[in-house]
Structure formats: C-alpha cells, structure tokens
C-alpha cells in the first residue's frame, strides 16, 4: 500500500511541470523556501542600504563607486544627498521589519516546518498559502520599484508619519507605492495567519495534544493570532493615508500647513491618529518578529543541551502573556506626543510588565542549559548568543519604557541601538539558528561547521562592536534620521565613535559573506544529510532530508511523547522521538 502510493506520488510529481513544482507550487515546503529566499534577498538589499547610510553618516559627500550608475537619480555622481539618505533609511527599515524579520521567522520557517512538526500533509489551505507568497512578492516589487521609477523612494521613515507622508509633494510618489506595498503585505500576512491557525487547530496528527506541541509551533500559532488581529489596523491606516495623498481627504493632516511657500488644502486631520493606528499595529508587529524566534531558540537549546526545556508550561504561558501584553503597550512609542502623563504612566507600567514573561523565558533558557550535555553546533552557538543579545536589547527597552527617560531618549540613537539589538541582532540570530538547524531538513545537505563557526564569532563580536557604542552616542544626544552630524558642535567629540561604529558595520557585513558562501556552496555540494543529524525529537526529524512531497504519506505518525524527551532516565538513547513506541517508566 505504502509502496504503491509512493510510486503513484512519484509519478504524479514527475508529471508536474517545473513551474508547478518550484514556482507556482502549493507545497508548503516550496513556499517556505521561497519565503526564505525572499527574506534573504531583502536582507542583502537592506544591509547594502545600511552600509551606504553608515558611509554617508561619517563621510558625507563621498563618491561611492557604481552607485551613480545604479541610482543616477538619487545619487548623481555617486554622492548621496541628505534627502536621499532619508529614502535609504525608509526602505532599509521597511525592508528589514517586514520583508526580512516578519517573513523569515514566521512565513519562512513556519511554512516549511510547522506542518511537519504536527504530522500534517500540508497547510490547511495550500492555494491560499501560495497566494500569500505571491502577494508578498508583489509587495516587495512595489517597495523597490521607486528606486528606479518616478521620484524615488519615500523619505518619511518606515513609520511614515504624516504630515510628511500624507502631503504628496515632499514625500514624493514613492510613498504611494510604499502604501501599496504595505497593503499587499498586510493582506498576505492576514491570509497566512488564518492558514497557520487553522492548521494548528485542526490538522494535528493523532496524539498531538496542544501541550505536546513543540514550542516552535506554539510560537508560530500565537504569532499568527497577533498577525490576524494587528495587520488589518495597518491596512486601515494605509488606506486612509492613501486617501489623504490622492483623494484630497484630511484624515491625518491638519489645516494651515505651508510647504514651499504655499498653503496646503487640508483641514482638521490629526497626525496623532496615524500614530495611534500605526503603533497599535506596530507594537504587536515586533512581537510577531520575536516570538517565532523565541520558539526556535527554545527548541534548539533543548535539543543541544540534551535536556527537556525547563518549564514547558511557563514557556507557553509566557508566549501567551507576551502576545497579549503586546497589544496593550503601543503608547510607549508615543510618550513625547503630548499624551496625558497618566496615559504615559499606564503604558510605561504595562511595558515594564512585559519584562516579566520575557525574563521567565530567559531564565528558563538558562535553566535548560544548566547541567546539560551541551553540543556546540553552529545553531547552538547562535542560540546562546541570542540569549545574550536578547538580554542586552531588552535591558535598554526598560530605560525607554519610562516616560521621563524616554522624554530625553526618544528619537536619539539610544532607541536605534535598542531596536537593532533586539530585532536586527537577536531576531536575526534566531533566523541564523533556524537556518543552521533546519538546513539539513530543508535541503538535504549539511552546512559546513567551520565556516559556521567563523561566521558566528565574527558576527557576534561585530554586532556588539556596532551597537554598544551606539547606546553611548544616543545617550550623548545624537538624533535619529539625521543625514549627517558635522553641523552640530556638540557631536564633534562623538565623531571617532561614529567612525568606529561604521567600520564595525562594514566588517560585520563582510563577515556575512562566510554565511552566504557556506549557504550556497552547501546547497549544491554539502555532504548529504541523514534523517536526523541532530538527534532531535520532533516529527520533522522522522522524515528523509528533504521530506517527500506528501510529507508523511501513508505513514501517519501517532504521537506518544512530549516534544522534549531528552535524557530520559531509563530510555535506550538520550532522546525519544515524539512518535516513538518506546515506553519508559516515568522517572521525573
């Protein structure tokens, strides 16, 4: 029976064209890989943008080779203008937050791994899944197109605050395409979210109760709930913004604005309305970014400590608490917007409350490591580093969560340092963990561990070299979103530190070449991976690497164990697969 179905599966797979198998595929594994490479492409573009920004900050007016040829409009002669600097930072932020961090952790790894970990054949709605990917792809095109058409990309930052983003002229036509890009991304995310939730609720294999789910699945599930609730609000805000730009409405723009000597025809709108709508989405968004990564870290730390995760249930409740509290704290992005001090107090207290479940998770990771037989694979190195950078990034958040402190720190590089540590470093490290851990399963080959170690050490030291000094320049008062600092005497003593940050950024960016070389070389010539090279316990490791198109096929796994049965006393090996029929007298 199994052989016949496998044979038939092979036949039907062979009959599908290349386009149906690898381009317009409904297979969650293909879609997951497509998302992953979309995120990889986006991060490369985003890093290039950030390198250009760091060059400009320290050496404004430099002629950058090739830039004049690629972007003749914005950087004639290879020199970035101050306005174009703002365009670079807008697209850098938008790309990184949406197309890298939101895509890689949730859509990339989530799509590939989640159905495997729950013993399902595919996501609940495979065609919807495919639609989600291509909508995201269209969004990426819409975002990057303004570099090459029209007046160039918008200059209002990834947060697109009106009036600048809403008045049309100064922010340029690129802002319209930005809204379209974000709208496409919102729809894609909402469709993806309902797919994830339905899949987790309905498609779990026999025996897989909710409390036996790997923490990765819990994280993807809760993230999907956050996405389902929050992206619609961003879409609403985007629609209103577009109407202000092209429809003559005044949702966000007040009357009496004079731009270029001319009074603009708006009346009665409020930029604060945008801020509320945007950040009501924007804060859950950062948890959408970090939650999947936390799930991956828990999973990998347990696997390579050869110990169950410390406190499985508290970990689940902590994920739920972070998700819920994430909806209550958006005002902490608006402490200086003129809100009542009572509101500020409320948002500040709630913000600090998120530190509680976050700390529970951190201590539980440490508790998992304690006494474990650690295996220092590259994935584990990045996971350990994640704990470090997560704490670093999280601690600066506690400063920023206090309204009186934020009154000084808002819009300084202290904020930039904070969110880069927690998102640009910690979340990216989580994606590296996922890559090094699941590459064998996804592509059937092993990544080179030596290159991995080199990549790790250069990156780990590099990111601290970039971002720790950035806290200090922020504390000293360096403002955000300024194209250069040479006009300000008080920042002159910081020039050396800025130079150090830029150089550290260049070195760290260059270090990623080790990763890229490893990735692409191993894709074609890496040693073949076995079914379970890491001796992990979750269901994806019961399948060949890579899994066949129909995943488990006729062999529906029946789950009999929890997700982290590692080093169970009395067991035959130091790990028990979730679908193992091994019975062990429970010692713990």
């Amino acid at each position, binding site marked *: 029976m*199994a052989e016949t*179905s496998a044979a*038939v*599966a092979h036949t*039907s*797979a062979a009959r*599908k064209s290349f386009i*149906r198998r690898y381009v317009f*595929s*409904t*297979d969650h594994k*293909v879609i997951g890989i497509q998302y992953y490479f979309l995120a990889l492409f986006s991060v490369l573009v985003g890093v290039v943008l950030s390198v250009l920004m760091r060059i400009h900050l320290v050496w404004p007016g430099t002629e950058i080779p090739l830039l004049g040829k690629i972007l003749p409009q914005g950087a004639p002669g290879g020199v970035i203008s101050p306005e174009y600097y703002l365009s670079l930072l807008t697209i850098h932020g938008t790309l990184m937050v949406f197309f890298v961090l939101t895509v890689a952790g949730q859509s990339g790894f989530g799509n590939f791994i989640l159905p495997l970990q*729950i*013993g*399902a*054949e*595919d996501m*609940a709605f*495979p*065609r919807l899944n495919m639609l989600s990917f291509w909508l995201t792809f269209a969004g990426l095109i819409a975002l990057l197109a303004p570099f090459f058409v029209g007046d160039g990309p918008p200059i209002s930052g990834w947060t697109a605050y009106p009036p600048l983003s809403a008045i049309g002229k100064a922010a340029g036509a690129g802002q319209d395409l930005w809204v379209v890009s974000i709208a496409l991304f919102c729809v894609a995310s909402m*469709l993806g*979210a*309902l797919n994830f*939730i*339905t899949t987790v*609720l*309905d*498609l*779990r294999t*026999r*025996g897989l*109760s*909710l409390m036996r789910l790997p923490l990765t699945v819990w994280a993807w599930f809760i993230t999907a709930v956050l996405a*389902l*609730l929050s*992206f*619609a*609000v961003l*879409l*609403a*805000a985007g*629609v*209103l913004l577009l109407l202000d730009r092209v*429809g*003559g*409405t*005044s*949702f966000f723009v007040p009357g009496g604005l004079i731009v270029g000597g001319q009074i603009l025809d708006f*009346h*009665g*709108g*409020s930029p604060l*309305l945008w801020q509320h*709508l945007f950040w009501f989405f924007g804060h859950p968004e950062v948890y959408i970014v970090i939650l999947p990564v936390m799930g991956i870290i828990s999973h990998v730390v347990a696997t390579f400590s050869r110990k169950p995760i410390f406190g499985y249930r508290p970990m689940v409740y902590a994920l739920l608490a972070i998700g819920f509290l994430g909806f209550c704290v958006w005002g902490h992005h608006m402490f200086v917007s003129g809100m009542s001090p009572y509101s500020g107090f409320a948002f500040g207290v709630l913000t600090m409350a998120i530190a509680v479940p976050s700390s529970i998770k951190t201590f539980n990771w440490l508790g998992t490591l304690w006494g474990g037989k650690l295996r220092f694979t590259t994935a584990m190195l990045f996971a350990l580093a994640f704990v470090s950078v997560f704490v670093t990034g999280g601690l600066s958040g506690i400063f920023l969560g206090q309204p009186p402190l934020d009154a000084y720190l808002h819009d300084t590089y202290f904020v930039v340092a904070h969110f880069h540590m927690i998102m640009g470093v910690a979340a990216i490290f989580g994606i590296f963990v996922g890559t090094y851990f699941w590459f064998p399963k996804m592509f059937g080959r092993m990544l080179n561990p030596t290159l991995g170690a080199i990549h790790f050490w250069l990156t780990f030291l590099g990111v601290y070299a970039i971002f720790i000094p950035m806290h200090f320049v922020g504390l000293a008062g360096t403002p955000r979103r300024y194209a250069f600092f040479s006009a300000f005497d008080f920042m002159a003593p910081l020039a050396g530190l800025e130079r150090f940050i830029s150089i550290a950024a260049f070195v760290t960016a260059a270090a990623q070449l080790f990763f890229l070389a490893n990735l692409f070389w191993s894709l074609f010539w890496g040693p073949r991976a076995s079914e379970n090279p890491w001796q992990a316990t979750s269901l994806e490791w019961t399948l060949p690497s890579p899994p066949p*198109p*129909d*995943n488990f*096929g*006729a062999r*529906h796994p029946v789950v009999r164990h929890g997700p982290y049965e590692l080093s169970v006393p009395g067991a035959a090996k130091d790990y028990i697969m979730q679908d193992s029929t091994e019975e062990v007298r429970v010692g713990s």
Partner: protein
Amino acid sequence: MAPALLKSTTASAAIPTVHGGGNGFHGGGSFPGGGGGGEFPRRLPAHTYRLGMWLGLIPIVMLFVAFTSAGVVRSGLSTDWAGFTLPRVLWLNTMLLLASSATLELSRRSLTAGLGRMFAGWLYTTAALGLAFVGGQLMAWRELIARGVYLATNPSSSFFYLLTAAHGVHLLGGIAALLYMLFRARVMVAEPARRTALEVTAIYRHFMDGLWIYIFLLLVRWS
C-alpha cells in the same frame, strides 16, 4: 472547545474524513500528490473550512474597527464635521441585502436536500440581489455627487465613501465566489463534499450583511 479539539485530532489531520456521505476519498490519505496540490486536491473536514472562514472574518472586523475608531477620533477632533442626509436608496439597499441572505439560506438548504434546480435558482437570486445592492450603493454615490458631496468635501462624507467602498469591495468578493459556485453548480449538486464551499460562502455573506447593518447604523449616527 478543548475536548472537541482533542477529538478532532484523532479523526481529521492527515486522514481526511468525509461527512455526510462519502465520495471516494477514503483510506489513510494515501492518494498521491497531496503535498503538491496534485491531481486530487485533498478534502479536509467541513469544520476546517468553516474555521478558516470564521478566522478570516476577524481581520475584516479589525479593519472596520480601525475605520470606526478613526471616525470617532476625527469627528471629535475639530469643528468641521458636518453631517448630511443619507440617500434614501440606502434603506432599499439594506432590504435587498437582507433578502439576499434569506435567499442564500434557501439555496443552501435546497442543496443539502439535494434539490439541484432550486439550489441553483436561489443562488442566482442571491447573486442578483447582491449585485442589485452594489448597484444601489453606486446610485447612492451618484446622488451624493449630484448634491456636491464628494470624498473630500467633509470628513463625514470621507467616511461615508470609505466605509461603503470598503464594504462593497468585500461584498463583491463574496459575490464572485457565488458566481463561481453557479458555474460549478452541477459538480456541487453531485458531490456532497463540495457543499462546504456554499456553507462557507454563506457565513461570509451573512457576516457582510451584519457588517452593513453596523455600518449603516454608524452612518446614520454620524449624519
């Protein structure tokens, strides 16, 4: 909810069961091409599709919650909010939409009872009523334009056009689904498993009706 979830894990998952009469998709999911959406698109239990649809309604709710809160804030912000008389055709449109929900229910029940021609007939009626609603909305827009009330005339008119347009766009999506089902009506009568599509569309249409009632009341309040 929790016990039901556990029960469903034993029954559904990778073993697609068919409710209310089989149609040949039996066995342990051993048909080919499952992962790649191959020749036999796999059928999940009806409740999975219903769950997906209910979940899909949540972001639509959030969209209109966001629009509502924007309207509440904007109306309280400045003194330029000026109400206007709503076109009377909106009342007729509301009746048309409610009627279309009723005819959709008749269609759905006919399908369950196996009455193919009645099913298709009521489905045509539903689609026609839905399109009549959209036509009526456009007539309302035309009346306002004739009165000189445009999108940007006043914040209240901005929200009128915004809410009716957003609702209309979503409704048109639902009507497109109805038309697709009409196109495939013969298959739907023949295979009970495919009736889930109609159930799921019905949930969506009823929700659109309820949403319109809410929007209508909101517009009345703001006018």
